[in-house]
């Protein structure tokens, strides 16, 4: 827009500008200022000098991170966990939504859906309490059970190989209810006449599901998977932090980029290194978003994110 026209617009619509100003300031302060603050990744940060006054150290922080051997490990963990969560959760959500939609009866079905949705409302702190009570060596419910049937107890917190399964289970436990609602909403939007026509033609329930329901929700599946893929380098911090906590022996199998940089910041006070990890993650995420979006645009324009 021409400067003169901007000026006129500012005057004519000044109330609208005032109304959007608080949000504009909010995003400037909490999002755009930190983007500029990313330069701290190239600095030797000290609290007294702040982001802009601290001395430059070039790529030292990055060198530290990449030479620690942790960069590849936490990146791999982040991506693999997200892939596992994405596949397992979506399969469960789609299956449960389709089955719930086809089930007869009303109240019991509603009740079951409510129960599946319940864990979504619980914080990861409480989920952490649950995990501890299940897997704790001395009193954990699973070991109590194992002992009662004469099997020797398992020390879960010393056994990193078991945690990928535990984490995938609890990710599903917490989020499948939410995803089921999304898919149910999509299925409820499918044209009822198709089902009636299929019924008249003598299609059974499996044919109905495979020929009508599944093809109709494919666009939703694609969009939801894309949203997940675009976030694949961002770990679910709350989950890993609360379920794993400070159990160092598990880190090799459970540390994601987010928990690693969090500890670098809060436990080690390594501001520069933590910022380098954050910058690495942001750039990685941004590149992945652009690539997924571009490839989707080529295949199927409507499903692109932007």
């Amino acid at each position: 827009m021409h400067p003169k026209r901007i000026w006129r617009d500012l005057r004519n619509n000044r109330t609208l500008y005032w109304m959007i100003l608080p949000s504009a300031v909010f995003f400037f302060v909490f999002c755009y200022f930190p983007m500029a603050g990313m330069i701290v990744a190239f600095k030797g940060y000290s609290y007294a000098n702040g982001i802009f006054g601290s001395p430059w150290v070039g790529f030292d922080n990055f060198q530290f991170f990449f030479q620690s051997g942790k960069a590849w490990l936490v990146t791999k963990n982040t991506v693999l966990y997200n892939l596992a969560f994405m596949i397992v959760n979506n399969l469960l959500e789609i299956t449960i939504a389709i089955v719930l939609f086809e089930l007869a009866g009303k109240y019991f079905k509603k009740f079951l859906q409510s129960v599946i949705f319940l864990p979504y409302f619980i914080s990861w702190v409480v989920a952490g309490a649950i995990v501890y009570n299940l897997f704790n060596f001395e009193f954990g419910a699973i070991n109590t059970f194992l002992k009662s049937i004469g099997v020797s107890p398992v020390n879960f917190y010393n056994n990193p190989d078991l945690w990928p399964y535990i984490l995938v289970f609890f990710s599903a436990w917490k989020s499948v209810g939410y995803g089921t609602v999304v898919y149910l909403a999509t299925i409820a939007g499918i044209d009822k006449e198709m089902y009636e026509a299929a019924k008249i033609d003598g299609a059974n329930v499996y044919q109905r599901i495979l020929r009508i329901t599944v093809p109709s929700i494919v666009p939703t599946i694609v969009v939801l998977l894309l949203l997940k893929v675009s976030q694949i380098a961002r770990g679910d911090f709350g989950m890993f932090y609360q379920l794993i906590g400070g159990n160092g022996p598990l880190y090799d199998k459970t540390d994601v980029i987010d928990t690693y940089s969090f500890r670098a910041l809060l436990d080690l006070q390594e501001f520069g290194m933590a910022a380098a990890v954050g910058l690495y993650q942001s750039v990685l995420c941004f590149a992945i978003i652009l690539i997924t979006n571009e490839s989707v645009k080529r295949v199927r324009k409507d499903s692109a994110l932007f």
Partner: protein
Amino acid sequence: MKKKARIEMYSFQIIGYVFISLFAALCLIPFLMIAAGSLTEESHIVKNGYSLFPSAFSLEAYALIFKNPKQIIGAYEITLLVTAVGTLAALLLTTMTAYVLQRKDFAMRNAFAFYFFFTTLFSGGLVPWYILIVKYLGWKDSVLALIVPSLLNVFYIIIMRAFISSTIPDAISESAKIDGAGDFRIFASIILPLSKPALATIGLFIALHYWNDWYLATLFINKDHLYPLQYFLYKILSSIAFANSSVAQQGSFVVDAPKESFKLAMTVVATGPIVLLYPFVQKYFIQGITIGAVKG
């Protein structure tokens, strides 16, 4: 119906119900376990471990919480304050922004929309954001640090914008304008009241987020009296705060305070309100997700 089709239908119903019921049971069992454990005698837990059903019934853990409830009441107060103030402020800001963004006569609306949306694609990461709040805003150990950083969420703005532009006809705003109402007046006395259904659902999502938040407290709160509920619970569970807590200060702690069942009772006390409210608010959450699934 033919016999074969009927068998197929029944078999599907049976398998379906069994499958969904099993999954639902897995969702529910952890809650029962926590509740059962909180009602079990401490010595029984220490000797036999947790079980699914309360075997040696005891209320001692709850008695202990309510003997000296100052800390948990304080945590409840902080969480209620943060949730109430945060949700109201967030709703007002979200709706106001969404309204301006959907005004078709507002030439800069796409520029602003991009300015907001871009923050979901790229972020500065934890460290500069942390430094901003601690050093430049000076919000360490301030309630502001528990409220302000999560006030606005771009997805709620997008959903609200879609709701306003699809359910409130432009003609209403236009005719109010002809009658001499200013933009803010139109927003406050027409748009806000007409957006009630969306305000209720988005408000509940925001309130749930504030209620369950412990992340901001982990980063910014060190003083006990400012702990929100979930963070207080986290501290109790990880035994860090336990030694300083009301229980430890009563002499009997060292010998046989119900440490394990106390943690579980605390979990129940902190989670109770959500589980009790859940049946009543669930449908608004489902509505909200449905709006998001269709519009987003």
